[in-house]
């Protein structure tokens, strides 16, 4: 037996969320007294591949096939499931990224495995394999037991710490038979948002709502975000009105994020908004209404006018950076 971690790359590099998933998979391997095998698909340089060893992978299987240069959900799922079978991996771990969400259900079906998606903690080390995940849009957690022999677990980004084990990984080429029927989807174009910090990966997020009055007032939000190295986000009415792009909309119908810091400026804190952000580690609310519901779930707050408070915050961050 072994544990297999699928290490997804972004343009040839592994993101922090992947190293988190490797650390997490290593801890699961340790619970089971077994080894951790990583699988990489696509063009990743040797030095980057061996970095997976730093977080606990003993062996890295490297699949570099021209047909698999860019992501093809069905084909990638086949390769990962095949690697799991060849390595005798009864537990497969992925990051619950957008691609991971596409892959995990297919891999689970291929392996006849139960799937614990969006795990937020290590499995219980006891006799039963139980994992905690967020349910009811952040309003509760469920403890899910996987009762099948094979298991697939996808880890929510930013919910497990990085653990450097300092080990080395051996890199081996891995080839698998590819089926033409796995290649029916074709990528026509990839449109990159901008070179800004991407919201789903961001550790710090500065977000603003209808309290900002209009799109012309986002300059100070972007300035604060830039200074902090944070991503920007917004409430639904703001993206509905076209003040900000839909990709920034967080909440029940937008994306769910769990950054280390979420600063909400001029957002009331409606339950549908909270659904996407309530698992943020630290929440800061700036709102001129002391009764705004958001204050009930905040760690820090300022009751005040955003147009006065935000410039002061920008000044304070500048001073902090200068010191």
């Amino acid at each position, binding site marked *: 037996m072994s544990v297999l971690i699928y290490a997804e790359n*972004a343009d040839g590099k592994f993101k922090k969320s992947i190293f988190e998933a490797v650390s997490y998979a290593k801890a699961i391997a340790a619970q089971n007294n077994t080894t951790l095998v990583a699988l990489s698909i696509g063009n990743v340089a040797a030095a980057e591949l061996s970095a997976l060893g730093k977080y606990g992978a003993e062996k890295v299987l490297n699949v570099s096939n021209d047909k698999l240069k860019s992501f093809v*959900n*069905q084909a990638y799922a086949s390769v990962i499931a095949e690697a799991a079978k060849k390595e005798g991996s009864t537990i497969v771990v992925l990051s619950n*990224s957008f*691609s991971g*969400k*596409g892959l*995990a*259900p*297919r891999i689970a*079906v291929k392996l*006849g495995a*139960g*799937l614990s998606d969006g795990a937020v903690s290590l499995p219980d080390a006891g006799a039963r394999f*139980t994992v905690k995940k967020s*349910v*009811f*849009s952040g309003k*509760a*957690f*469920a*403890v899910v*037991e996987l*009762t099948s022999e094979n298991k697939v677990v996808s880890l929510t980004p930013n919910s497990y710490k990085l653990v450097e084990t300092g080990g080395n990984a051996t890199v081996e080429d891995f080839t698998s038979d590819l089926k033409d029927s796995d290649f*029916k*989807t*074709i990528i*026509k*174009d*990839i*449109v990159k948002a901008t070179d800004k910090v*991407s919201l*789903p990966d961001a*550790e*710090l997020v500065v977000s603003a709502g209808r309290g900002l009055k209009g799109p012309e007032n986002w300059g100070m939000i972007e300035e604060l975000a830039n200074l902090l190295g944070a991503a920007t986000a917004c409430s639904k009415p703001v993206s509905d009105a076209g003040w900000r792009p839909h*990709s920034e909309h967080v909440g*029940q*119908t*937008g994306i769910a994020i769990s950054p280390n*810091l979420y600063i909400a400026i001029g957002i009331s804190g409606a*339950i*549908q908004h909270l659904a996407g952000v*309530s*698992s943020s*580690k*630290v*929440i*800061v*609310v700036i709102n001129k209404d002391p009764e705004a519901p958001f204050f009930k779930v905040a*760690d*820090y707050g*300022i*009751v*005040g*006018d955003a147009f*006065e408070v935000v410039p002061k*915050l920008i000044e*304070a*961050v500048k001073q*902090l950076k200068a010191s």
Partner: protein
Amino acid sequence: MKILVCISNVPDTTTKITFTDNNTQFNTAGVQFILNPYDEIALSRAVELAEGGKGTVTVINVGEVSTEPTIRKALAVGADEAVRINAKPHDAYFVAYQIAEYAKDKAFDMILTGRESIDYNGAKVAGMIGELLDIPSVSIIKKLDVDGTTATVDREIESGKEVITIPFPFVAGTAEGVAEWKIPNMRGIMSARTKPLTVVEPKEVKTLSEILSFETPAPRGQVKLVPADDAAKLIDLLHNEARVF
């Protein structure tokens, strides 16, 4: 064009979530159930694509008889017919298996789901159906156009989007952007009463997972308020106390 839309029946977004039986059961007492918002988006797009005789829309739900008001709502929005697999949805695999079994010999061109259900938030059903039927699946999509027997979709990725073409048949999980929500009109509501709703008994399937218990998140401590005229203090607290930067 034959479209199947998978719909789930979920607690209204404003529901206060509580549990019974020693935190092992979701307390449905007094809870208002709705059509999952993402499924509503999938359904709205399906109805648009099928409009003007270009296709038919079937909605399918795995659920007990209590879900029928939600199914009727989907018919009122514009689906042509409905199917209910008569079973409590045990987990995503159970649901996907029942839907795949129903769909396998019906030649649907497109099977749409929501990106995720807002109760169990799994985003699993679409991929599982795709694998069970051995057809492509894409999740999560924010745009869906059809030209002949090929669809073009925008798939959400961390750094932006991918524009992908997929031949029929396929499965896709849809999110905001694919369509505007349709609000049923009086004619829709009236005609929904007479549209066919077929009840099908479930197939036997292996259990792979079990929810053992629920927990509510630890309440956050009291909010620490900083006076507006001393905003710099907030940056100091975030840096030195919360240590987030």
